[in-house]
């Protein structure tokens, strides 16, 4: 694996490399070099299986992180290729020519995150939502509870308790002194 | 016998046959359930179903032909039944049997399905024309061995009158067509499987493919007519088969016993087999049963048979 990372470093500028487990590694590459590295990994390094393509919303940094999870069936190693793209005007190159099922993920990402993949087939078709007119729901600035309260009729009588508070009040009145509770040590 | 008495007898006969056919349907469900390892619905469940469907308050029609579909179907069932002598020698159950009735009955067996095809087509649901196409295609394929078997029987007994065919089979079970011309019975019994539309020939109603096909839009009263017909028609077919191949019946008990076993043949095949693909079903009917039918004619006409 180290050999492969060295090789990739020679090809593209590697922004970060994390080894999570023996069989799971993450590399971060530049947006422009993604297609190059993916096709190299697929064609020459045996990472033939695209397990998924998903996005993570880092709203604080104004970035989306796209994760391309590849799998090598010979060495049984998973490699996550990460790309950071801008959150506003989110757009990414389509990889539908590399894997025949990649367009599905791209269609889902367009609908749930609003990330556009120009050229990807059926990317603007609705996937799981019908007639959605709000901001894409998986973005972190979309408040699903507020939307649900406004749109669907809540039946009165539901109450929500913060479990920590609730336990403190009802079950363990002397919470601080209780030896039964292991608190986190942060 | 005056016409009025005859009509009165026919009403009794039709009522008994319908009730018997529906009970058979209930027994079928019970047997299926037992094969499945279940308790199963009560035997009188089909009667409750008919009351329930006819008692709906709303009913949607799609036009005149749609209305006529179930009516044609019931007419087919009635027509088939009314020209078959049910019990040999009984005044009440001899119906309108006459010379050459076998041809008329053959016609009526397939009449209902044609009428249904006209009616269901107007429902507008895409699955009904697909179901009709399958149904008519399958009908014309299982009609072939059945017709061949009937021709063999007609040659054998030199008659197109069911009553005289039954009469010729009296006097011991060795006179039944089952034993005098077994090949014709094989051909006919296989085509009965197709007629009864149990698996593996249930391609018309196939719920997993075209959710129950032609009657998909039938509701309320229309459906209850179809259900009634299902009981009557099942009884009519079984009685026809009993008369042609199993020596007829001289009393009600014998009729019940014989038809029950004829019906259970297709029920047990149905419980043990999955469904054919339409083209497989067509090819199946055009193969072995047709060959058996042709051989039976050769056996009777050229080899002399045993009669």
């Amino acid at each position: 694996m180290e050999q492969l990372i060295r090789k990739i470093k020679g090809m593209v500028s590697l922004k970060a490399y994390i080894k999570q487990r023996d069989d799971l590694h993450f590399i971060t590459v530049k947006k422009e070099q993604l297609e190059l590295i993916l096709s190299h990994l697929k064609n020459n390094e045996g990472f033939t299986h695209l397990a998924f393509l998903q996005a993570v919303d880092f709203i604080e940094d104004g970035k989306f992180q796209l994760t391309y999870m590849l799998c090598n069936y010979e060495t049984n190693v998973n490699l996550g290729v990460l790309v950071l793209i801008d959150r506003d005007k989110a757009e990414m190159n389509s990889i539908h020519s590399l894997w025949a099922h990649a367009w599905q993920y791209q269609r889902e990402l367009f609908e749930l995150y609003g990330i556009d993949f120009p050229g990807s087939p059926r990317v603007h078709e609705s996937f799981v939502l019908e007639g959605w007119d709000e901001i894409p729901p998986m973005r972190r600035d979309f408040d699903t509870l507020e939307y649900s309260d406004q749109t669907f009729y809540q039946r009165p009588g539901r109450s929500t308790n913060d479990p920590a508070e609730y336990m403190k009040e009802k079950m363990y009145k002397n919470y601080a002194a209780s030896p039964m509770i292991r608190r986190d040590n942060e | 016998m005056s016409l009025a008495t005859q009509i009165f007898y026919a009403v009794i006969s039709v009522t008994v046959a319908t009730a018997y056919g529906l009970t058979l349907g209930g027994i079928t469900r019970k047997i299926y359930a037992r094969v499945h390892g279940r308790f199963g619905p009560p035997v009188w469940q089909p009667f409750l179903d008919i009351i329930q469907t006819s008692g709906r308050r709303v009913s949607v029609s799609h036009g005149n032909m749609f209305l006529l579909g179930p009516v044609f179907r019931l007419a087919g069932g009635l027509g088939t039944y009314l020209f078959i002598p049910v019990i040999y020698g009984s005044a009440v159950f001899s119906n309108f049997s006459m010379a050459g009735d076998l041809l008329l009955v053959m016609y009526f067996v397939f009449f209902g399905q044609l009428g249904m095809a006209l009616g269901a087509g107007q429902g507008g649901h895409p699955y009904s024309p697909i179901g009709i196409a399958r149904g008519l295609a399958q009908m014309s394929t299982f009609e072939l061995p059945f017709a061949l078997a009937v021709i063999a029987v007609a040659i054998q007994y030199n008659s197109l009158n069911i009553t005289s065919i039954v009469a010729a089979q009296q006097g011991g079970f060795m006179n039944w067509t089952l034993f005098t011309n077994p090949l014709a019975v094989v051909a006919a019994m296989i085509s009965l499987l197709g007629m009864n539309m149990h698996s593996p020939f249930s391609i018309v109603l196939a719920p997993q493919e075209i959710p129950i096909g032609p009657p998909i839009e039938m509701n309320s009263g229309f459906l209850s007519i179809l259900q009634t017909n299902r009981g009557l028609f099942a009884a009519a077919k079984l009685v026809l088969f009993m008369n042609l191949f199993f020596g007829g019946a001289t009393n009600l008990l014998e009729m019940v016993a014989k038809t029950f076993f004829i019906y259970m043949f297709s029920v047990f095949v149905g419980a043990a087999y999955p469904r054919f693909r339409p083209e497989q079903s067509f090819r199946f009917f055009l193969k072995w049963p047709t060959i058996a039918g042709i051989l039976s004619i050769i056996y009777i006409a050229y080899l002399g048979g045993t009669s």
Partner: protein
Amino acid sequence: MSNLSKCKYRGYEADRSKYPEMENGKAVIDLDSHKYTKIWQGPQHPGVTGNMSVELIVNGDEIVHAKTHVGYLHRGFEKLMERRKYIQCFPLVCRICVPEPDTNEYCVSAAMEDLAGITVPEKALWLRTLNLEMSRVASFLMWIGGQAGSLGMGTIGQWTVGMRDFWLDLFEEMTGGRVYHMYMIPGGVRKDLPAGFKEKTRELITRTGKLMDDVDKSFMSNVIVKSRLQGLGIITPEMVDEYGIVGPNARACGRECDIRINNPYVKYDQLDVKMITSTVGDAYARAQIRYQELRQSLDLMSQILDRIPEKGAIQAKMPNLVNWKIPAGQTYIKAESTRGEHGFYMVSDGSEKPRRVFARGASYTHAIAVLEKLAVNISLSDLAALMVSLHTCPPEIER
């Protein structure tokens, strides 16, 4: 193993390549010409698996175009999990795939353990293995029923789903839940085995084995089943990588990809798991592989029952789960469900709620890209059988 040349009715099949006319590599389908009919198979249709729909254009009985529509079961699990604390996610994750919820539970708890660096005690791992295998058996039993039902043979479905119910009883005894178990929580499992559980399981294994003998006689070796499934929906080895096909669907055409063997998790490295493959790739080969895997799962379970340690902790020492904060990081945990690679991708930002949880279900590609490809040029009557033979499970597609 079946052979394509043995396929009885194959020679009769009409040449379907002439429909529709191809133009520039794209099918030209003129609906107004009344040559084609548009049919929506589902969501209200007894032949589709779960609540999804396939938009079909048929020419007679032949499908010339298929398009999958999902989203009828979309609940936004991933969004909901972002709003919940880690331990509150557990009631949600098991509902992602209803017939086989335990793989979800395992993946999420393993992902949390991986991120937080928790080692699970030995006995808990064995119990997890047992639970995962039990859920595989339950799911396969349901699948056999579905495959038989899609061919119109309700009898097998009644037998196997009835048998599955006894497995659900065992689940209830073990975990307290019939369908949703929430058994594997971070750090281990919730409960030890109840008294007498092993004997009951062994007895049920024998009963299921006997039922499988009956199924083999009446379903797997049935002439009509063979004639319908052989040659249906052939997946070629080239398609496996192209479409991301996993699990039994990929093993049926020769790809050796079983995560239990390739990347052993829980205790599979100490068990005798065999790779079951075939080279044919049609629906019948898939059915046989699933049938044999069910047999193997029963066998594995006897091995597990012999080797579960009597004593030992079932829970690692955990911080207070109510305020549990997991260090920042990301991980991907995959496990072999009955449909193939089932994985969870979890990103933590150091707070007490996950930043992102993504469930990768095997059906995601099977039900959309693969189904749309394989459904073309088959008969309308085979679509239900094809969908079941790909083992699609809609809730894990749309989540």
